[in-house]
């Protein structure tokens, strides 16, 4: 008898343990206020403490600079591990109805998801639209979802190719490949020169979607609640076929981007090129001793064609009770001192700096004196128009490994993986109330 009693208690424990996983959620609506551009100046005269979540190391510097100019506004910076952690915490706060910060950074690809989920506020009413002209079109638009301007761009990621010139030369390649055919030839040469060296790794969801973009694909299109997914459209399939030939020829490294093994591969000259956002231009110091260079990513016809890869903006949450003060921070980060700090840290998303000789002429020791920002600017001017992300891109990227990632690991048929990914996404989208492919 005593036993059966304790079993019930244990049942409670086992279930309780599972339930703890879900213990943080509760639903209720968030406050929302309306504002006007005049409110921004008024807000600066009131003692206010703003909360600013971040994953970057430079936010504290920006916050301090803002408080120096506006002594009544204190900013509490909360650092998190990475962009995913910020999205997760923000979505939990929305679910709980409380706990969101005032200012939150967001990767461009998550803007539709966060706006649709009610996490981000429309800041147009505070007059931030006047900064539109200061930014490149693709970055400014990335902060807008269905007419809601959620904030301002911070950095941007027009894709460039950063390549190990020393390795390319040793393998007998004298010029950076400009077409995908030349890139394939370089791949074979590098692999033949050193069987442990590869021109690239097989890539993750963020990489793949950007490559589809640069290849002219538009696999995702969103119109209100109607979503169309076609991961076999011409541009997408063209790249998938191409990447598949390198994959099945064993010419792509299996290491996962950002892993320790990946870092070692870069340092030791076992990974020949990175196809990444221009923010990586300033991120190569640890891997290069002057042997790397920056160039345009290859294209089908040799003419520059690029895409955005990563990059993020600064947004204000729907839960924020100090939207006007937060709008002042947006302005500070768009055109004020904050922008100057930002533009020395990452790859800028503003137009003025791209014509600024002081910026264009910076010589990078990492690239043996190459004026690498020029390449970033060229890429920025050649980003293909018309790309859209899914309103649930974060989840889509999370389950990428189940299907496409799986075939990348098994060196299988990428197109089959894409079809399977699409079917998962269609099912999920429809279950979430969107009208997908109907």
């Amino acid at each position, binding site marked *: 008898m005593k036993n059966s009693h304790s079993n019930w208690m244990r049942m409670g*424990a086992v279930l309780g343990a599972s339930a*703890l*996983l879900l213990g943080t*959620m509760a639903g209720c609506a968030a406050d929302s206020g309306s504002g006007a551009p005049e409110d921004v100046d008024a807000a600066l005269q009131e003692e206010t403490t703003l909360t600013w979540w971040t994953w970057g190391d430079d936010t504290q510097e920006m916050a301090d600079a803002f408080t120096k100019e506006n002594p009544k506004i204190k900013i509490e910076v909360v650092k998190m591990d990475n962009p995913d952690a910020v999205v997760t915490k923000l979505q939990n706060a929305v679910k709980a109805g409380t706990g969101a910060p005032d200012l939150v950074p967001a990767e461009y690809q998550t803007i539709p998801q966060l706006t*649709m989920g009610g996490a981000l506020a429309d800041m147009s009413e505070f007059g931030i639209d006047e900064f539109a002209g200061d930014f490149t079109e693709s970055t400014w638009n990335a902060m807008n979802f269905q007419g809601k301007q959620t904030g301002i761009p911070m950095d941007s990621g027009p894709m460039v190719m950063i390549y190990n010139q020393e390795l390319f030369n040793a393998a007998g390649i004298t010029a950076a490949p400009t077409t995908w055919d030349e890139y394939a030839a370089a791949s074979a040469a590098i692999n033949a020169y050193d069987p442990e060296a590869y021109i690239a790794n097989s890539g993750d969801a963020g990489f793949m979607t950007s490559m589809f973009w640069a290849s002219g694909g538009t696999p995702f299109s969103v119109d209100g609640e109607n979503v169309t997914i076609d991961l076999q459209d011409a541009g997408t399939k063209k790249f998938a076929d191409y990447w598949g030939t390198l994959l099945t020829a064993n010419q792509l490294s*299996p290491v996962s981007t950002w892993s320790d093994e990946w870092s070692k591969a870069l340092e030791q000259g076992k990974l020949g090129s990175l196809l990444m956002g221009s923010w990586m231009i300033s991120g190569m110091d640890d891997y290069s001793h002057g042997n790397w260079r920056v160039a345009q990513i290859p294209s089908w016809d040799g003419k520059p064609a690029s895409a955005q890869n990563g990059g993020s903006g600064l947004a204000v949450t729907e839960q924020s009770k100090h939207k006007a003060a937060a709008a002042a921070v947006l302005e500070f980060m768009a055109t004020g001192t904050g922008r100057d700090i930002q533009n020395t840290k990452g790859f800028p998303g503003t137009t003025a700096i791209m014509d600024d000789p002081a910026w264009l002429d910076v010589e990078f020791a990492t690239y043996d004196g190459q004026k690498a920002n020029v390449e970033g600017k060229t890429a920025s001017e050649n980003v293909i128009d018309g790309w859209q992300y899914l309103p649930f891109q974060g989840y889509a990227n999370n389950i990428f*490994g189940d299907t496409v990632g799986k075939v990348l*690991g098994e060196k299988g048929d990428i197109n089959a993986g894409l079809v399977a990914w699409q079917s998962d996404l269609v099912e999920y989208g429809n279950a979430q109330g969107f009208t997908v492919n109907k």
Partner: protein
Amino acid sequence: MTTGTLNTELVVTGRPKAGSTLKPRTTHRRRDWSGWIFVGPFMAVFVLVLIAPLVYAIYLSLFRETLVGGNSFVGLENYAQALTDSKFWDGLLRVTIFLFVQVPIMLGLSLFVALALDSMRLRWVSLFRLSIFLPYAVPGVVAVMIWGYMYGSQFGLIADLNDLLGFKLPEPLSNSFLMVAIGNIVTWEFVGYNMLIFYSGLKAIPQELYEAAEIDGAGPFRTIFSIKLPGIRGPLIIATLFSIIGSFQLFNEPQMLRAIAPNLITSYFTPNIYAFNLSFSGSMFNYAAAIAILSGIITMVFAFIAQNPEGFTFKKKKSMSTVEEQA
């Protein structure tokens, strides 16, 4: 693994309090509520941290909130969907196989070490005991990072070994060896913990039994099988129970390895990982709650069977009485 064991520990310490104080009070003589004052603090915490989340999870699981269209009551639909969800069953099958392979190996090793330490034939017993227990003190996340580095077949320890040996060792982070790699980490982490449970059980066996065995002429192996193993029956069941719960809750190790091997570890690799990804990445809190409740129930069934192994044979009544006697 860690969450599972922690939560269960809570209950094990709580059980005697609740069980023994409640029963006599409610059935005998006049009602005296003063006992509640003593169990009150415990009950408050118990309700707050165990019952409330559980009830809330069940409540959540009866709804469906979507990105478009809002929240609606769907009854048991989430459960019906989960029961036919091949991803859920895939994860469940994986942890079940893991349970039947990894747990016997781990507990066997723990038992062997505990018996060796208890054999009085070793010197520096406390040094051995401490060093075998040490991995348990390493946070699970750190442990996975250490092993993740060693498993690296391109630039990690395996790569260095390959260079040294001149031939290729199997890749731990590949389809065929992934579960072995995870099982190895889990075993490394928890052998010491289980060893300690067994060892303390062995220490509690009365010395007279050994003396009697010696007088009867029992050798070391006879002593193990006739005195030591029956003597630690309780600890054996407890350790098995923890391990079963730990297996079903497998999360830390595969979740951390997902960063290194994203193409091998799916978003539904184990039921817990599935629930985690559904809720925190896919905003499917309701469905994730249903998955969590279902896997909780299944864990409970396995735990129940393990706890009453004889309960499912014909000797049911007899063995129940032995359990009572021992308790």
